[in-house]
């Protein structure tokens, strides 16, 4: 049974210019112990999905979904107290920019210790409890690979380098022992060495603790190396979703194929000095979303039927939504 189950999530905003449907019938599932990658360009709505799961959407967005459940309980129907409880213990989020996610007026140690759930602390006297908090903080920080804990735990956010910052954010997420870790583009703008460290950390956590990870990114290399399953998002619609090996071997949606083609390391048979294949055009703005399949105007295989949103079809675990997928010949 999947832990996080989202079906037909739609996010609408009513503005003065009309209704904007930023997310249109998005499907996403994360099972226990799996690393799912959520891939899409900037502007495809990945961060909106993360905010919708957390419940941190601004009030002007209206959320509708056929099913949005965590471990069987409906997230949309919960009270805010219960939702907060779920967020506190079972789901953890690592945001993009570690510098802005930390309170600049408190030391790192204070912020880490306040995130430790009080269920883990036993002790009658407050100094016992403070000691235990400190111990848990130090051990968590060691687990993510920060060696000089004394220096960093007493530092302020503007004094630490950004890779330590991101590792610290992961430590803060882990301290409550969640079952699902949502990483919203954590390795953006990092040097490759730091990126590999963080990705290795994720893989290790997934293997040792069977922590499920929802890894939101557009870095295909990182995703290909570590994720088990992948969901591809384009302009607020899920276009393809399935196991990583299957998608790599045989992408069914033209967008997925273009995405995989654009990363040179995926293709072994690329002759030198050849053009990198791309799809012409750019992602549509929110005010001018195409009707039906949103890739329509750019897709080389588009026909008249594409003005209707394609239904989701499945081949074993591999689901796609396209009227003319790649395993069908163009009519």
């Amino acid at each position: 049974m999947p832990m996080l189950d989202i079906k037909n999530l739609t996010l609408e905003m009513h503005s003065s210019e009309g209704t904007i449907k930023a997310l249109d019938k998005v499907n996403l599932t994360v099972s226990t112990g799996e690393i799912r990658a959520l891939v899409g360009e900037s502007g495809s709505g990945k961060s909106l999905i993360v905010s919708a799961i957390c419940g941190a959407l601004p009030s002007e967005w209206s959320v509708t979904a056929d099913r949005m459940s965590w471990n069987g309980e409906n997230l949309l129907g919960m009270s805010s107290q219960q939702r907060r409880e779920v967020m506190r213990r079972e789901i953890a989020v690592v945001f993009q920019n570690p510098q802005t996610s930390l309170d600049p007026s408190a030391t790192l140690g204070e912020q880490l210790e306040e995130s430790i759930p009080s269920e883990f602390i036993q002790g009658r006297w407050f100094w016992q409890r403070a000691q235990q908090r400190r111990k848990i903080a130090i051990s968590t920080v060691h687990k993510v690979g920060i060696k000089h804990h004394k220096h960093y735990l007493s530092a302020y956010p503007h004094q630490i380098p950004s890779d330590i910052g991101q590792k610290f954010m992961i430590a803060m997420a882990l301290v409550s022992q969640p079952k699902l870790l949502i990483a919203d583009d954590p390795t953006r703008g990092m040097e490759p060495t730091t990126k590999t460290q963080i990705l290795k950390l994720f893989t290790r956590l997934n293997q040792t603790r069977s922590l499920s990870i929802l890894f939101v990114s557009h870095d295909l290399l990182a995703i290909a190396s570590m994720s088990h399953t992948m969901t591809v998002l384009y302009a607020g619609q899920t276009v393809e979703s399935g196991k990583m090996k299957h998608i790599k071997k045989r992408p069914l949606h033209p967008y997925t194929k273009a995405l995989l083609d654009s990363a040179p390391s995926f293709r072994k048979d690329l002759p030198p000095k050849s053009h990198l294949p791309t799809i012409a055009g750019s992602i549509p703005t929110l005010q001018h979303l195409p009707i039906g399949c949103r890739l329509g105007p750019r897709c080389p295989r588009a026909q008249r039927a594409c003005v209707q949103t394609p239904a989701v079809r499945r081949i074993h675990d591999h689901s796609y939504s396209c009227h003319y997928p790649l395993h069908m010949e163009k009519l």
Partner: protein
Amino acid sequence: MIRILARYSILFVLTLLVLAVMSFSLAYLFPGDVLENLTGIVPANDAQRLALERQFRLDQSYFIQFFYYLSNLFAGDWGYSFTSGIALRDEIGIAMPATIELATYSIMIALFVGIPLGYYAGMRCYSTSDYIINTSSITTYSFPVFWLALLLILVFSLQLDKAPLSGRISLLFDVEPVSGFILLDILLSDMQNKSLAFKDALSHLTLPTVAIGAVSTASMVRITRRSVIDARHQPYIAAAVSRGLSGWQIFFRHILRNALLPILPLMAIQITTLITNTMIVETLFSWPGIGNWLIQAIYQRDYPALRVGMLSVSTLVITLTITVDMFNRLIDPSREKYEHAAI
């Protein structure tokens, strides 16, 4: 830390030096003869003039005169006022604590009423209570302070006859000026009817404090509310929400400190405005403070009084602003990242 203290002390000393130079040169800038301005005596003939000049060192170079002026200031000889003939030091010694007392009570009201109200309005921003607080604060802030004081006098003193009109305490009570702060003096002295005197002094204090405090409070409410709203929209508050911290935890640990820190640099300007408003309101209530004294001095063109009065008030203001700046610098951790040249 020692470096910060040293830097600010040097700044303080330099500023005071510049102020002393300015106040010294005022003697030469005032219209009229320098000798008359300084002493008030019109020399009868040349011999007297020469003698007076030698006595007040007016025949020597500017540096020596300045040095003489400074040494007099430190020795305590601040000259004599034209109008009353009393030593200026005594006059300022009575007037300054009165102003400081009034300003202190007003600023207490501004801090302890204004900041909590600002927090309340900021946390419930765009709701009805926030709307009411915002509207009333912008209305109160737009009142000219002297008109507000005048209205208070009209309504409370003249119509309703609830509060007294002028002075610090009714003439029936005779309080020994030990510290200059009248409430403190009443408690320290050994009179028979202390509580009556205390209540009387309080009633004299009420109207001026309300007038000054209202405008300052409105200003603090606006500043605090804006700072709280800005702090609430920061990304780390959203990150804290996603970690599941409760509303109270977020407020006490994060919003409280981060909303307060940007306000502190603005406190210096608030203090300056407060002292200006205090000085204006003192004239309306005949409160024997330094504002009233200075304004009387300027009406009567009492030049020695003006010189030393200006020096003393600006010293007070500079001391307060530099202290607030230094305090700022010490407790705000994120200011360390600004580069400074070594002192």
